[in-house]
């Protein structure tokens, strides 16, 4: 059922057009937006770890940077979906692609836990050194997003 759906998807006019003509350009936009997602997250995460931007409050830094992250993430999901439908069955069977999706899910869980639990006490450390749970969320996020980028590159070597 899944394979049939994917086969139908990659046979659509849009998928064929991307596959035959637009793939390099869509991929370029995907790389630019992923670079913006990961880069802005790294800046926020290193602040969360207490390593950089210590003169700025954590909430201020994240409020200024995260809108860029979310905007880029939206574009990245869109371009990623377009790339996926161009070779849906190939990516579905691809191990780095599956790992990439899993790491993105884990990065989302990490962010959600931070937002719902650790962030509640931000008033006590906003302008100072973040506590261990916040620093753990920061390093986990850096590792997970580095993994997402790395596996994204590996997809190109294994499809």
């Amino acid at each position: 059922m899944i394979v049939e759906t994917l086969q139908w998807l990659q046979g659509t006019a849009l998928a064929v057009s991307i596959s035959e003509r637009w793939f390099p350009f869509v991929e370029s936009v995907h790389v630019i937006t992923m670079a913006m997602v990961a880069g802005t997250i790294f800046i926020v995460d290193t602040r969360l770890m207490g390593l950089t931007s210590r003169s700025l409050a954590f909430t201020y830094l994240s409020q200024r940077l995260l809108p860029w992250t979310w905007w880029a993430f939206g574009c990245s999901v869109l371009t990623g979906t377009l790339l996926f439908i161009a070779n849906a069955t190939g990516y579905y069977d691809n191990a780095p692609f599956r790992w990439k999706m899993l790491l993105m899910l884990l990065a989302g869980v990490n962010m959600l836990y931070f937002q719902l639990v650790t962030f509640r006490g931000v008033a006590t450390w906003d302008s100072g050194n973040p506590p261990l749970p916040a620093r753990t969320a920061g390093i986990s996020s850096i590792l997970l997003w580095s993994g997402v980028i790395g596996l994204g590159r590996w997809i190109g070597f294994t499809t």
Partner: protein
Amino acid sequence: MSLRAFGRWLESTSLSHLIQTTHGAIADIQVVHILALATLFALALNLSLRIAGRGLTQEPTSSLARRFVPAIWICLAILLLTGTLLIVAEPGRAIFNRVFYTKMCLVLVAVAFTFWLSFLARRRERRPTRLHAALAGAYMLLWISVIVAGRLIAYSV
């Protein structure tokens, strides 16, 4: 020595052989290359926004530049090192490729821009002008072009 002979010599070096024959080495070097580029891109974005009078406005432009510009140089050094390793591993992909030379020209202009913006940012605080905003926008467009050219190299071999 002709370019073709230089490429053949580069490909025959032990370093080139080592990278070519180590499983996953080229992919892993590319991963480090992209991670450095992602970090540089976000740093450049923040520097540009601040020069244009937006972004992290609670911090003086000169202070932000003192923190971000050295980090940009570190990212550029990593990009240079990993980029060189990729050329050594697969000279044919780069040295006969027009898109590669386009990318290198764009990188040179971006480096010159980094020096200029760094100088501009460290001067006494002034109100950002339209020229500053235009320069900052051009700086980001340059890095976007570098990324696009980098990706298109693979399609023009």
